[in-house]
């Protein structure tokens, strides 16, 4: 009768109404996972459940019994940030930072889906063995994570630079054309 959260077994809440999100935030004080809508409509609460990205606000904690949950707090290895976390800083993939944990967890789940060959709404050839991770593919796959600050470009760049290749991201050159007219 427990859930494994970032590697540690955690008892189930006594009240089955408690969502996985509230279990994390209120019971375990793991407030890194955010609540933007509590309705499945923003993605801020995205966590990895047995490695797959889900919205924790619409997951009852009891549904996660016996399963492994990874939250944003479980990504960094001791002092070292996950490469994607570092890329978010390097590419300025956030402003207020409220959607950020959800974006990061979602992107990690997404990378595994891409690797597995899961197609998306914008995939041209459904039968292709490998899917070219174009910018459009990444954007479609990340569309379940809203960002109101408008950090979208930086987010996709951070993801592309981490999981695809440095070249897949837009150039970010402090002295480049973007930086001075």
């Amino acid at each position, binding site marked *: 009768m427990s859930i494994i959260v970032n590697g540690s077994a955690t008892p189930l809440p006594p*009240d*089955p*109404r408690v*969502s996985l999100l509230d279990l994390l935030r209120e019971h375990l004080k793991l407030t890194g996972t955010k609540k933007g809508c*509590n*309705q*499945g409509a923003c*993605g801020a609460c*995205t966590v990895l459940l047995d490695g*797959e*990205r*889900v*919205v924790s606000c*619409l*997951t*009852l904690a*009891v*549904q996660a019994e016996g399963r492994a949950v990874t939250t944003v707090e479980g990504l960094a290895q001791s002092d070292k940030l996950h490469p994607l976390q570092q890329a978010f800083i390097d590419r300025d993939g956030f402003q207020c930072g409220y959607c950020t944990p959800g974006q990061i967890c*979602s992107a990690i*789940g*997404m990378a595994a*889906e891409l690797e*597995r*060959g*899961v*197609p*998306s*709404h914008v*995939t041209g050839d*459904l*039968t292709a063995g490998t899917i070219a991770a174009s910018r459009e593919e990444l954007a*479609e*796959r990340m*569309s*379940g*994570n809203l960002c109101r600050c408008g950090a979208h470009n930086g987010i996709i760049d951070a993801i592309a630079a981490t999981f695809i290749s440095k070249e897949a991201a837009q150039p970010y050159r402090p002295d480049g054309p973007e930086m001075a007219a």
Partner: protein
Amino acid sequence: MTPFQYSRATSAAEAVQSAGLEAAKYLGGGTNLVDLMRETIERPAVLVDVTGLSANIDEREGGLLIGAAVRNTALAEHRVVRERYPVLARAILAGASAQIRNMATVGGNILQRTRCAYFYDDEGSRCNKRTPGQGCDALDGFNRMHAILGTSPACVATHPSDMCVALAALDATVHLEGRQGRRTLALTDLHRLPGDHPEIETVLEPGELITAVELPPLTMASTYRKVRDRASYAFALVSVAAALRVEDGAVKAVRLALGGVAHKPWRAWKAEAALKDGPVTAEAFRAAAEAELADAAPLRDNAFKIELAKRTMVSVLGELAGEAA
């Protein structure tokens, strides 16, 4: 959320037994039910989690038998679905977000409820579906997202699923298990039109469980097109599931279904009849679309859907015809 008891079923029989109560509900991924419970629109006393039941996808007689607990992502990524039923893969992938598709089950997707905003507004709006006889605030309110076909003065809501539109076009059957035993139903017969009782959305008996969905073989090119208000993560204004086989310059076989236009996934029988054995031309496609939408009734905000549905049908058929040619 109203308090409830939670249990997990390990077999269909056990599930049906545990759900003996009127106030019991099956729980799939929870992406619709938990949301509605939080809004106190659904108030089950017992939740029977059926995600532990069959999540297999088996090839059977050239078709597929899909367990009701199969997650939407798993179905869309299945090799056979991608190769032989692209319309289904595309419909699923056009719905919701990756996170929600990872959670949502086949059974739950089929039985998800309308997204009508007045239905969701438990405190502030009247809705016959929520409270029979109360009246329908959508009739003269915001109804841009609402139905144009098969509506009634009692309710003009749409069924929001994308997957079901593909299933309707694919002649899918639904396997059911209830206290009276097992039965199968054509998916197109499962959902009801609102009539005088919009609160009754399907022909399921109380406590009846969806155990599987079966797809017959498909030997046509197929695809799905969804038109919506933003590029992704939005419900359909109109969607079209289509399958087409052209032989000797004529339509040999065709299946068409529409989403976003009715209280149920709308199989376009009239359009199919108009197309069958006819020419593969834009004019013929248009005529078929006109036939299907001849009875469409616009509301205050959604008249555009009539033309949109027609144009989208023509465009999708054109695309498939081009592929077939």
